[in-house]
């Protein structure tokens, strides 16, 4: 065998082995098969790698070319191996992902969404508006003394203004001494007795009256009361506070007005109305300057302190916001009602 023949034979053999290796790795169908075949194709014991040992036995001048040819063959196999590996990995990923395919519109179970009652939500909105205006939130009992509900608020016994309230009394203490509060105003009295001015509070809560339930009446309803007592508080301050609240709660474009009215515990007294952007009016509630006798009863000197108070219904605001037209719906607890807010 001549040296030339040996070198060319080696190169030819390398090409043949490379072709075999490429065929083998192409034949592998899975990543596992391919990686298992790697030692036989590219490992130390692989036939193609084994040819390296025979390069040394070639004529020295033939060695570089033969070595190059061998390296090229190996590189070719390695590259084809990597390519095939990528291909198989991609195919496997595709298979895997396809097998995991889901219809995301298939929702057999719908976990419930909890909600707050529309009255709680409305009350919170109102509280938040007033808190941002620097008011704190006060609370008082729903079963009240006759004195806190009427007496301290300048309704002497037999006063005709008591007729404006259809009061429900409860059997506790002497007859007529204890009642279901008809308004949140007794909280004013409790706040003034408990704290010293300056006072900036709102008092939301439940009130009661002797009423037959219908679309616009319930024997129990919700009110929010505001009270400010400080030095130099004026009717202009009341109008300004109402206006600030109106814009903050209802939004820009809503304005307010005060109209003279009568409540025994405020003087001057005023109704306050809100004007919608379309020009229509909404009668919202009552207000006024805290009556000097009420301040006095609560231990505040009316010559030093003055204040204003206002109150309005929460239920109606909730009804207006959501176009609820029957007050009784608020109290049915039908899940078809509760789940809408």
């Amino acid at each position, binding site marked *: 065998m001549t040296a030339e023949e040996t070198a060319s034979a080696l190169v030819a053999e390398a090409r043949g082995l490379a072709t075999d290796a490429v065929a083998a790795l192409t034949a592998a169908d899975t990543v596992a098969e391919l990686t298992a075949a790697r030692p036989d194709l590219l490992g130390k014991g692989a036939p193609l790698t084994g040819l390296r040992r025979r390069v040394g036995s070639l004529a020295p001048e033939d060695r570089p070319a033969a070595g190059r040819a061998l390296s090229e063959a190996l590189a070719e196999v390695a590259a084809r191996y990597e390519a095939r590996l990528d291909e198989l990995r991609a195919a496997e990923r595709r298979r895997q992902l396809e097998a995991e395919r889901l219809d995301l519109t298939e929702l057999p179970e719908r*976990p*419930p969404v*909890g*909600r707050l009652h529309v009255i709680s939500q409305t009350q*919170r909105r109102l509280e938040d508006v*007033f*808190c941002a*205006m*620097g*008011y*704190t*939130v006060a609370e008082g*009992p*729903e*079963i*009240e003394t006759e004195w806190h509900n009427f007496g301290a608020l300048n309704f002497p016994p037999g006063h*005709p203004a008591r*007729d404006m309230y259809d009061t*429900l*009394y*409860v*059997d*506790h*203490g002497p*007859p007529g001494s*204890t009642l279901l509060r008809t308004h949140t105003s007794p909280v004013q009295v409790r706040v003034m007795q408990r704290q010293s001015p*300056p006072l900036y509070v709102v008092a939301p809560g439940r009130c009661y009256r*002797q*009423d*037959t339930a219908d679309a616009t009446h319930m*024997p*129990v309803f919700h009110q929010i009361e505001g009270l400010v007592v400080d030095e*130099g508080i*004026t*009717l*202009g*301050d009341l*109008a*300004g506070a109402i206006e600030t609240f109106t814009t903050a709660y209802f939004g820009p474009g809503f304005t307010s*007005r*005060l*109209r*003279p*009215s*009568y409540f025994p515990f405020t*003087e*001057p007294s005023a*109704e306050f109305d809100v004007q919608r952007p379309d020009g229509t009016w909404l009668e919202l509630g009552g207000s006024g*300057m805290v009556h*000097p006798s009420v301040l006095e009863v609560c231990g505040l000197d009316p*010559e*030093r302190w*003055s204040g204003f108070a206002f109150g309005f219904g929460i239920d109606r605001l909730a009804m207006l916001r959501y176009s609820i037209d029957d007050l009784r719906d*608020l*109290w*049915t*607890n*039908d899940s*078809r009602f*509760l789940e809408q807010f």
Partner: protein
Amino acid sequence: MKVLLSWLREFAPIEGAPEAIAEDLSDLGLAVESMATFAAVSDGIVVARVAGLRPHPDADRIQLVDVDAGDGDLRQVCCGAFNMAVGDLVPLATVGTTMPNGLEIGRRRMRGQHSEGMICSAAELEMGTDAEGIMILPGDLELGEDLTAALGVAGDVLFDLEVNPNRPDALSVVGVARDLAARRGLPFELPEPQVGTVGAPAGESVRVEILAPDLCGHFSVRLLRNAAGARTPPLIGRRLLALGMRPINFVVDLSNYVMLEVGQPSHAFDADLVPGGALGVRRAAEGEQVETLDGAARTLHAGDGVIVDSAEVPIGIAGVMGGASTEISEATETVLLEAAWWNPTDIARTSRRLGLRSEASARFEAGVDPEIAPWALERFAELAAPGGVALAPELVQAHGHLPPRPTVRVRTGRVNAILGTCLTAAEMLACLEPIGFGIAAAEVPPAAAPRSYPGEVWDVTVPSWRLDTATEIDVIEEVGRLWSYSRIARTVPKSPHPGGLTSRQRGRRRVQEALAGFGLTEAMPLPFLAPGDLERCGLPPDGITVTNPLVAEESIMRTSLRPGLLKAVAYNAARRQPGVALFEVGHVHASGDGELPAESDCLAAALAGCEAPAAAALWERLCRAMGFAGIEVRNEATAGMHPTRSAVLVSGGQTLGVLGEIDPAVTAAFDIAERVAWLECDLGRLLEAHIDSPRYRQPSRFPSSDIDLAFVVGEPVPAATVEAALRRAAGESLAWLRLFDVFRDPDRLGAGCRSLAWRLRLQAADRTLTDAEVGEIRAACIAAAEVAGAALRD
């Protein structure tokens, strides 16, 4: 209070658009509830006479009416009202008329009978609110005449005003006109009635006496002769009708007219039926009787005001209703017309008790002008004179106690300080004088006033029609009212405090939010209970009772949120909405000896379709969300709860609540077919004492070790007891522990036992725990659990 613009104009020259007048009235505190402008002509609606009434052959609720509209034809009209009689004049909407509501009147058949037009109620004509019956017109109208023209209200405006209790003066046309004139800077005048007197002075035949001066401020009488057969003047009848008052007879109509005009009610006696012309006023004795005008025999209470005759026999109830024995008739020749001032409180009490409230009693209750009676009596006579009625000379009057009318000291500086205005004294004067207040500079500056204001000090005289005005603040309100609240500059007072919620209020909000986050929806049951509701819940029936409920369902205040939420569960289940998860935060009341019943803020949750563990899990989750700590869940049967699936929440010896499952007998009593897991607790106390303020613990950087321990535990030993023992034994190195497996297998574990397996994660903050340390903790845990009654499973 209804007023007609044409009537107001008799006292002040009020002009301009009705809308602008309404705006002024509202701004004066006389809120306009509604306003109606009468059409110049009521096209097609004419005056007709009822010529015949016949039953409908095939309908009970309709009758056939033959009407005569003056054109020679009798028309048959079907009508659903029955309040008219043959001869009555009624409004007829002829065929082709378009009604105010847009309905076109056509020829119709009703149950087989033809109907040519419609006879109308006041409401259908938008001339009043009375929709009950057909509007009966004054008898002197001409048949076939256009209705608005016939009534003399063409183009007139009717304002319906809401008058506040402190404005008795505004319960009259005169009072409203006075306010409106003052606001508009117009002259206002109450003209003296123009009426002459004839015959013998009244004092010769009439005597009056007040025996109860605290009841009756004055009792004033005029004598009118030649009253028989007098008819109500047409204008008066029309106006009364437009204001929704049906004309009745001459005397009643005039009395009503004067009352509406000036606010003074009056009462007429047939002088021939009053023995000796003597009228007295006293308080009734208990059980005295009087037959009132409506024919009812009324039994009086001691203290009720009565009018008596010379024999001391009651012939009327003061300020409330006259008596039958002296009633006016067509034949009454001589009338004793009485106008009095009654103590408002007395009238309020008597009219309320007898259920007799009238336009007159309402005015006496509010407080009538004590000086207007002579004017009102003469005005009556003036209006009656064209009918031939003659007024006798002399006002016969007796006096009792009238409320004092002290002058009111007013500081002009105080007026501005309360209103937030900078009005000059002259501007204030311009507000007060036109409505009758008199101003004089106070002679001595009020040395007693603790605070002086810049400006003047006045002694203000209050007009007789404003008895409500007694103090400085009342006068300040009048200045503000006449100046207009809308003209007062708005300022916003600045709170020196930061606003916000208390920690308890924030806590309550967080609880609500947490529960909503867990999928529960907030419900709002009524706070009232019906008798038997608490018993149905297995709870003691000790709710506070409402003294005067309208219905029995609202007669008891709740002591627990349970009946309300169970009703809500039942309501939904009955509408094929089972499995609702509801909660409520609300007040409950317990009876007690305090000044007020004990009131507490409670929380309850009902999980329909769930068993007891769902409630326990909910509570555990809520505790974690809120940081509630130190509350023991102790298995214990409680009232109304499933006896073997109930636990109490205990802290420091106090029971804060219950959880578990509602007793099946209770759910059955509420017609609930599902099981209901239940949680209820005193939220107020919980929030006060049990919120753990979180303090940050840095997570350990060192590796952790888990140990799993399975024990056989007798059923009577609560898992919580074993868990607490494990927690204590593991000590500081315990990161967390979880009960991860529970099973029961009598064959392997024996009856009455179960296997409970916990995983404990151990981790030290400052080092890696050694195997030896972990082993020691494990041994300590096993020992502690065994002391607690658990046996390690092999």
